[in-house]
């Protein structure tokens, strides 16, 4: 009985540890006080959310919001979408190629190849960012969005590869052999069998690659040069010596909300697929 109670207490402590900071962040995003606090409540407000769309005149009247550069923030967010727009398809292609190679090509070099392809995921992000900076610098390419895309792709491609490998390993090789035996070219086998089979995994891999690209900070920080992304800009705002504006809390809350919505949708969809 005691052990049961201990386990319960531990579980609650764990949940508190996980979600406590998030709850504090959400609460303070509705408090009319900067820097954010919940110990001192100055009234419910939605202005930290309104920051993104209120008109210029109202913005200038607020002592906290007027010092923030809204246009720059939006531009940096746009940069992030632009970067992800390249990183996601390129990583999916590379990950797919790697997954097919590692699951279908029987060779003694497979083990070695696996580590080589996955090593960027395990390497410190700073190293990847720095090496991209140095490599492209030598080639005369200045640090910017291009170097961010290159640096992110090196490690983001690992996620689709792992996800697609897991799915490919579950497809019996006989299916592909049967298709070949019926006269199909390897390309047709890939298009008619492998690709439709991989589609759900490709979608989840795309979502994960997108999130990895959006939230990446350390690699991007080194490769960005004078440009900025969503993550680096939030980082810059958070380093404000006078405490960060609660706008960041509002952004964080929206991200949590989106995550919950996507996770629920994913759970519902996969349950539907499992039942079908």
């Amino acid at each position: 009985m005691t052990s049961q109670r201990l386990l319960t207490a531990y579980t609650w402590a764990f949940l508190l540890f996980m979600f406590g900071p998030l709850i504090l962040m959400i609460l303070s995003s509705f408090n009319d006080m900067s820097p954010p606090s919940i110990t001192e409540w100055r009234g419910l407000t939605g202005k930290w959310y309104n920051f993104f769309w209120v008109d210029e005149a109202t913005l200038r009247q607020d002592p906290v919001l007027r010092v923030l550069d809204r246009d720059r923030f939006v531009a940096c967010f746009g940069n992030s979408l632009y970067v992800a727009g390249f990183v996601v398809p390129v990583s999916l292609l590379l990950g797919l190629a790697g997954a097919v190679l590692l699951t279908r090509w029987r060779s003694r070099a497979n083990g070695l190849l696996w580590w080589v392809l996955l090593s960027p995921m395990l390497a410190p992000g700073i190293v990847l960012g720095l090496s991209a900076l140095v490599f492209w610098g030598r080639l005369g390419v200045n640090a910017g969005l291009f170097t961010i895309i290159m640096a992110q792709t090196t490690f983001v491609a690992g996620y689709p590869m792992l996800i697609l490998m897991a799915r490919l390993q579950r497809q019996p090789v006989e299916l592909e052999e049967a298709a070949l035996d019926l006269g199909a070219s390897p390309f047709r086998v890939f298009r008619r069998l492998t690709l439709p089979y991989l589609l759900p995994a490709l979608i989840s891999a795309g979502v994960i690659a997108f999130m990895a690209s959006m939230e990446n900070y350390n690699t991007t920080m080194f490769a960005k040069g004078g440009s900025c992304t969503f993550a680096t800009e939030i980082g810059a705002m958070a380093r404000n010596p006078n405490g960060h504006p609660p706008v960041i809390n509002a952004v964080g809350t929206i991200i949590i909300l989106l995550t919950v919505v996507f996770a629920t949708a994913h759970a519902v969809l996969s349950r539907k697929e499992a039942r079908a």
Partner: protein
Amino acid sequence: MHGKDVRLEGVQITYPNGFTAVQPTDLTIKAGEFFSILGPSGCGKTTILRTVSGFVEPTAGRVLIGGEDMRGIAPNGRPTALIFQNLALFPLMPVWENVAFGLESRGVPKAARRSKALELLDLVALRDQADKKPGELSGGQRQRVAIARALAVEPAVLLLDEPLSALDLKLRQHMRAELREIQRKTGVTFIYITHDQGEALTMSDRIAVMNNGVIEQVGTGDEIYSEPRTAFAASFVGEANQMQGRVCGLDGDMAVIETAQGRLLGRNPCGLKDGDEAMLFVRPEALVWASSRAPDTNRLIARPVRRDLEGSFVNIVLRTNTGANLTMHQVNTGAEIDMESDASVRFPCEQAVVLPKGPLAQTGQELAAQ
């Protein structure tokens, strides 16, 4: 559709790890024949099938289909179609697209593909299931879809890798008849891999018995059953009583063998000589109760120890005075068997065969112990 003949000339298959799955083998399968390769698991029969279909290149020797050397020709370029043990139906395509897949690969337009697929589904009585997914069909139906899909490419040779092993007994027996019928209708050469001697005996024109990468005997079902040429073939196909000993005399095409049960006489098809180590095999249905007037040859004294009712016949296990077990099959007439006292049994010498000593097939007891 027309069947083609398949010839293996000195085909040997050694895997990269050094294991030789098939010893040098010569084998000719006639065009339009239902040919079975029968052997225990791991004997190399699937490897032969994969060699004919092109998934495995022989280490030595060559494969000819319709007289044409198949060296270097990939599976998608050979006039063969393979039915896999797990059927390998494409789960995401409806049944008709499965059947039409081979035609799709040959660039046949969609409407023609579908009508050809429906025609083939008619052949296997599944036309009304054409738009379902394979997962919605029963085991026997999936089986028939796999056959229709393989026939769609009009193969000259159809290769079947134990396709019935996943079905239950009744369905298996039904599918045997159906497969035989489809083979007769289409005239395609069937090469059928199985470890089930019942399947091989009921369906095949000819059977090859295989063990440890070697084809031990090729012949019709009757030949294999009644005139086995090796100890393995005699013990693997059907049941057989076996007695080990040494040849101690020859009499025309008969041989006398000295065993623990005494001197026994049987046919000598392999030309064994005096003093050779040998085994005598006799089928359970060849054993009969011996009357006192019967001749003394091939007479054994044994006591019935078990009577198993099989239905139309009775399986009687007897123990000889030297401790050996004998199995005897008798038509079930309802007659009582005296389990208390010694009896005299005998078998006609024409129905016994003396073969060179060699490895035997594993008994059920040995298989269960693994």
